[in-house]
């Protein structure tokens, strides 16, 4: 990312291809809630997340597991080691394209290790 592209501009640029396709007006997808059969973890897909433009933090607010989600300069982050994969964040995400992806838990951690 070049220095002249701002965070907001960057975000707009990222979301543009998806906006070009019609953002469907449809009912909210509810898929999670029940305890999953296979262990899962949540991933925030930054390009769909509206935290930076709309100051949304619903997933962090509603996460029932203490310490499983944090905010970094407004952006929600999942702490994969703590996340139980309950999927509440996915259910409550109000972004036009759900920004929370539920993935099968891998044996190794998905969060980047501090350098």
């Amino acid at each position, binding site marked *: 990312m070049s220095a002249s592209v701002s965070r*907001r501009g960057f975000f707009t640029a990222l979301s543009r291809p998806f*906006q070009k396709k019609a953002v469907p007006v449809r009912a909210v997808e509810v898929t999670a809630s029940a305890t999953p059969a296979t262990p899962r973890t949540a991933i925030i897909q930054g390009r769909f997340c509206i935290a930076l*433009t709309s*100051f*949304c*933090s619903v997933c962090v607010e509603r996460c029932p597991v203490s310490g499983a989600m944090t905010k970094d300069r407004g952006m929600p982050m999942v702490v994969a080691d703590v996340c139980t994969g309950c999927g509440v964040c996915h259910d*409550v995400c109000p972004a*036009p394209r759900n920004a929370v992806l539920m993935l099968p838990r891998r044996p190794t951690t998905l969060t980047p290790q501090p350098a």
Partner: protein
Amino acid sequence: MIQRRDFNRMAALAAASAAAQARAQNAPSAAAASNDGIAWDKAPCRFCGTGCHVRVGVKNGRVVAIEGDQLAEVNKGLLCVKGYHVGLALYGKDRLTQPLLRRNGVLEPISWEEAIETISQKILATPDQFAIYGSGQWTIPEGYAANKFIKGGLGSNHIDPNARLCMASAVTGFLSVYGVDEPAGCYDDLDKCDVLIMWGNNMAEMHPVLFSRVIDRRTRGEKVTLIDIGTRRTRTTDFSDHYLEFRPHSDLAIMNGIAHLLIKKNAFDPKFVEKFCNFRQAPKDPNATPTAPLLGDAMSFDDYKAALEPYTPEHVEKLSGVPAEKIRVLADLFANKDLRITSTWCMGFNQHSRGTNANRLCHGIHLLSGHFGRPGDAPTSLTGQPSACGTAREVGTMCHFLPGGRLILNPEHRKETEKLWNVPEGRISPKIGHHTVLMWEKFCTPADKGGDIQTLWVQVTNPGQSLPNLHKLFKAKAGQPDKFLIVSDVYRTATTELADLVLPSAMWVEKNGMYGNSERRTQQWFRMVKPPGEARDDAWQMIAVARRLHDLGHPGMKDKNGRFLFTFKNDQGEEVPVWEWPRYYDLNVDKVLFEEYRLFSRYKHKDLAPYEEYVKARGLRWPVVQQQDGTWRETKFRFSEFDDPYVKKGAEIQFYHSVTKDDKALIWFAPAEKAAEEPDAEFPFWLCTGRVLEHWHTGSMTRRIPQLHAAMPHSYVEMHPEDAREHGFANGESIVVKTRRGELKLPVWIDGRGHPPRGSLFIPFFDERLMCNDITLGDVDPISKEPDYKKCAATVARATAAL
């Protein structure tokens, strides 16, 4: 080299303006349709006062897609969470689709003819006891039609909008400082300022797209200092460099403290003050004339200085709880002329029982320090509703206004309005109508006890939830069969609960419309889909009733020449009976009403362009003035010579509607005072109410949008963790909040989205199952008559324990 994407965009732009051009002349067009069969058109968002534009995608007669409009200057393609889902507001399962009349306590379907007849008979029975309660969500033509109907037709001024609950104090602030309403600056100030001071203004939550515009500057490497002055920590605080937490109601003390220091240190701008300002204070005799409280008495600079003498930083600290050091920091910022300072405020100042004074003082410190009139140097109020400025303030759908900033009390203004409406002289009543709170009080009071409003017609708003102190101002209507409540809305609401007649309305892109946003930007859109069932436009409803009254012989429905008040002719010069619903869209009624209204806009230099200009644009900021070459130019910075065409050459800054007629603005002194109800031993907490990001006001639309409802399903009370611990409340536990007016049971949210200080509570008002206005006080500002929703005394208890 033109890139492919740019080329496509330009092609799309050309196609869109060609389409708009064609449709302005009422020719059908399919140019905006894309490959996938979705036809796209522009519209301002239905929700807040920011005024973002969306592109609306329509397929098979349904809104199927929404995206941010890249061509819109306000939002540049971005939207907030409400905006992304605005299309779903049309498609709640329980849209009202037929008129309903209450018979034996039950709302039963009736025909439109019966409904129009019922209203007409009610008005005829007691014409002077009929009132209209409108909205800052009315479109400009809707508000104009209602205003003309009641003031120019019925000769009564009992019309007021919900903007009285929202913007009235900003209006009295602007009027008493500049002699003319609405901000001088615009959103461009947010791009230019070095310091942004948000006074009781949670911009991240209420105007998120605007706030992202500011935050974005930081990521571009620009330095902008954000100062949040509030009574609770919010998500705006998270992004702010300074957070000043003050004791509720003491914001006036802080502003006086700044003015005190500016003068004490000789750090104000004497040149600016001498050239452009006079001083003002509350009148000795507020009853001397009706406008005395608004315009006040002159005071000398020395008197002003003396009045500020007590507001030392230490004294202000005692009053407000803000450390003296921080007051000094603020004063130092204002003392620095090299900085550009923008102040924004919204309901914190306005819903304040000293709201007018709070507005005045904020303008005052900007004027005193000369932080005015350069891009980035502006005191700017933000509005809550999409057309509070456009419809309520500019069209003047208030009980004391006439269109274009004219006043009921001014005989000249009445005469001009009568002339423009072509009605006989004397048609407009010289008596101010009832303002919102009084209107509802009178409606809820039995006729034999002085309740002089019998029939009340509500359009595009939900007072059954949004009025303060609901038991007194709304619910008392129950059990009074002679009081008749008419409600035009799109869904059942708390207001339709007590309605005697419910009319199903068309909403947003189901009708043509125009809005005016916070920064004086007038916006236009076309009807894109048909309303469901028998739902019809609000303006049609008003015109149909006017026509029925005309046919029943009401003399007021005719102009001087005996013609119906709402006579519309098509291009061939033939009259179109638009009061017959199938004929309503035979011509563009919005355009005709707007072109008529436009003539009113010049008097206060709020010039509006012809309708077609708005068809082409993503909104234009008034005054929009025609150039030599025939094009129309908007104005970004009012009163500044470099941008405002109405400022005299060489004047630099000219307040050309000055109260004192000398092109100067007024710097007011107003004392810091106590709130009407402060916490005491019995009710030890402050209670504040407000909004949340996900819901639009009373939630009648957004609570029907699944994504928004899932994101914020329930109201709550925010509380400090220490207070909760002391009371033994666990997070999420149901508790009772009680005031002198009632009680409310709701879950407590500790360390939630907002963080109130100790001894303070916050409840959002969107949830119709948990109406916080059952317990608010709503004491009104004596000048603006706007109620205070932000302060009253409350206590809390376990839900199970007896209170």
